[in-house]
């Protein structure tokens, strides 16, 4: 059988095709400023300040962790770079949900929470949300803190903790990744419902408004959570096949599990 070398040119061609496909998907699916985060001006100023004050120390801690870890392990930076790009792309990609007739996006913070830890995942989400708020009419500067708490903090923590708990129960890698992605997505929108209800309720009671928002999210986020679970599981399994040693170094796997 005729064989030839898989040259740099082939890899470059494949990379360009993937790049074009990604750009094409983003270009063709965006029709208007259909952001999925809390938009600019929705939250009253005191609530916007409150969520931002809550988020800033966590971002600072993420920065400290990044500096500390990348000083001791040089292979850490490329993984953080990859996660930053993944979270940025995934969290601004509108995906149509036919069952609901609307669009929403996965968060990507489950995979980053698992691979680089929740602290650095929060930092990655903070940068992604800031760029989206500044240039993509996606979210807002005043609502940056609230969006970071829901997507960055709750998404990363839910993904990380779910994965750790399931792995400690000897559940396999793919299933643990799936559950982590699923719960991270749902935790994000659960928190968004709390933030929105507490911010706009005025004199009306919290619970009915919170339930109303949460129920309204369900038709879109229920299937998208499943999609996020599948994406997270796929990424973990792919990385396991390509670089099991990296997963061991990131403490995702125990040394004896990386065969």
């Amino acid at each position: 059988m005729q064989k030839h070398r898989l040259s740099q040119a082939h890899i470059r061609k494949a990379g360009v095709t993937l790049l074009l496909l990604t750009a094409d998907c983003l270009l063709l699916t965006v029709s208007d400023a259909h952001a999925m985060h809390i938009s600019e001006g929705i939250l009253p100023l005191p609530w916007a300040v409150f969520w931002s004050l809550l988020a800033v120390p966590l971002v600072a801690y993420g920065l400290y962790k990044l500096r500390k870890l990348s000083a001791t392990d040089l292979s850490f930076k490329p993984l953080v770079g990859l996660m930053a790009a993944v979270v940025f792309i995934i969290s601004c990609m509108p995906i149509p949900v036919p069952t609901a007739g609307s669009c929403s996006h996965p968060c990507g913070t489950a995979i980053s929470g698992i691979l680089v830890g929740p602290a650095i995942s929060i930092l990655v989400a903070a940068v992604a949300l800031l760029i989206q708020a500044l240039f993509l009419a996606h979210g807002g500067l005043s609502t940056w803190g609230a969006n970071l708490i829901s997507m960055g903090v709750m998404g990363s923590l839910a993904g990380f903790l779910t994965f750790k708990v399931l792995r400690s129960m000897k559940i396999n890698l793919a299933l643990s990744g799936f559950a982590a992605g699923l719960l991270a997505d749902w935790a994000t929108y659960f928190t968004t419902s709390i933030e929105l209800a507490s911010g706009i309720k005025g004199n009306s009671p919290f619970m009915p408004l919170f339930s109303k928002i949460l129920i309204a999210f369900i038709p879109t986020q229920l299937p998208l959570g499943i999609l996020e679970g599948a994406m997270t599981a796929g990424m973990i399994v792919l990385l396991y096949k390509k670089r099991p040693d990296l997963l061991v170094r990131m403490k995702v796997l125990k040394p004896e599990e990386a065969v």
Partner: protein
Amino acid sequence: MTIPSSKLKAQSFGMMLLLLTAFCILPPLPLAGEKWPGVDESVIQKVAKEHGKEAKTSLINTDQGDLLLFVFLLAGAVGGFVAGYYWRVITEKRVNK
């Protein structure tokens, strides 16, 4: 690293088919803009409006004509490049070793 030529051809054909399918399926989506609102519009802004809160335009308003499409294209290209670059750095390390 060697791979069979026929396999490479089949992979290229598969990729082309995938691209063609994407081109055929995705173009109607922008046209159905009102039919597929984001959850920001269908949930967040709708509920907020009922409680007297309306979304404001962003500080740098790129939502003007096709400017937003261009910014999204740019973001997709840069994000895709960065992801691809670091993926290559991570996965090629094992080969080099």
